[in-house]
């Protein structure tokens, strides 16, 4: 797995400049509007999309087909992408938290709002979205998987908004005094990623590489 992860990092190195430029743009935007909470969403989104971007680089040269002629089995190939996904979304989340804390401690962040619950919810949406699209990515390719990700996230956001508007979700959450409800999205995220891995292994059993 180390060799495959190294390959992912080398590909990532190539994308590095683009990501730094996007981050710089987001920071300028955040400072000028004095609003930083949206950075959570963007940085976590970028983190969640890295595995797909490296998969696109693999697809361009049929790397997976080649890798399976090496002493690497299908499960290892899939596991590596999931490890990368977890690593990058975790990395994106940490960057979000650090940036928000930095802003919070400075005068830039006077109007800033940060909540662990919000962070957990955002990360959960991305993890669940990618959990659904990653098996599609292995089976049908990155392009279709990206549509599935967007569709899933729109659907989840729609359900969330409908819950707030129609079901009074917001007031229920505000009145909830038990604390720590962010644990729920974490549990959902972990469950979805585990199920996703097994689904990816299963649906690629008869894939033509």
């Amino acid at each position, binding site marked *: 797995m*180390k060799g*495959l992860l*190294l*390959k992912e990092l*080398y*590909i990532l190195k190539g994308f590095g400049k683009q990501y730094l430029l996007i981050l710089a743009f987001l920071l300028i935007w955040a400072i000028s509007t004095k609003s930083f909470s949206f950075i959570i969403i963007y940085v976590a989104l970028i983190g969640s999309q890295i595995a797909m971007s490296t998969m696109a680089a693999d697809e361009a*040269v049929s790397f997976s087909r080649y890798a399976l002629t090496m*002493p690497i*089995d299908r499960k290892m190939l899939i596991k590596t992408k999931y490890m990368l996904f977890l690593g990058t979304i975790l990395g994106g989340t940490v960057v979000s938290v650090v940036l928000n804390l930095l802003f919070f401690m400075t005068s830039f962040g006077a109007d800033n709002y940060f909540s662990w619950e919000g962070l957990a919810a955002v990360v959960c949406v991305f993890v669940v979205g990618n959990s659904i699209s990653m098996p599609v990515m292995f089976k049908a390719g990155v392009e279709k998987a990206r549509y599935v990700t967007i569709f899933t996230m729109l659907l989840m956001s729609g359900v969330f908004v409908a819950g707030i508007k129609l079901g009074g979700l917001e007031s229920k959450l505000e009145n909830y005094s038990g604390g720590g409800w962010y644990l729920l999205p974490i549990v959902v995220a972990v469950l979805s990623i585990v199920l996703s891995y097994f689904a990816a292994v299963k649906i690629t059993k008869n894939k*033509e590489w």
Partner: protein
Amino acid sequence: MGAENAITVENLTKVYDGFVLKDVSFKVPTGSIVGFIGENGAGKSTTIKAILGLIPVDKGQVEVLGHNIFIEEKDVTWREQIGVVFDECNFPLGLKGKDVQNMLKNIYRTWDAKKFLDYMDRFEISMNKKIKDLSKGMKMKLSIAAALSHGSRLLILDEATSGLDPVVRSEILDIFREFIEDEQHTIFLSSHITSDIEKIADYVMLIHKGRLLFTEDKDELLYNYGIIRCSKKQAERIPENLIVGKEVREYETSVLIRNKSRLEESGFFREAQRQEGNTCVVDRAAIEDMLLYIVKSNGQKR
């Protein structure tokens, strides 16, 4: 270690919409170079993908270096002994030679860094250049260097020399000849560039429309097969069982036959000369001719 056959394929069948690879069976003897020829879409790549376990098949068995390829094994380290090169370089384009080296040395326990560097030197490929900046020939050489740097016993090459100029192809064929000097090494090489196969193969396999038409010793093939150039009337006297393919033109008929000696024994030449004078010529048949005649005759007459 020293199995008699590096690859054994039995009744391999794969059905696609519009194409069927039908009951393909063959053996690749250890220590040999087997050339696998056929026109585009004949089934070469499908066969190779099946051999490598990259596609599910409808029927058949494939054994590579003594391992049944369709049984998912937990331990796949034996694949270190196989070097594979496809028709394109499969390393992500943003990687450099040194990245490929670092990646592969963490995948293959048998990775020989010195050998890889030697090949890179020999091929004049910079370790610091990104793959996307290499020419097609350089990319293929990089793939071949990688395939030869982890103690492979079996090289499987799918159109690895296609799209390369004759100089690069010749250089690559030299490398293959060096590789095969070890009698435990085997090469299974598919190509539609029949001249490459003619230069290095010990055996030739021809596939057409998903059916394996023959597997023959290359020298015997070149010795036995011939092209008879004669009149249409003379061509009609050639025994049907010797005809592989026929091309009829207004003033000349060319017939690819599978056994020149047997044709001579049949008295065909004497009879042809008696009837129409010395107008019948026997030419050497190159592997390309065999492929062309068979494809043109649609593989019906063998």
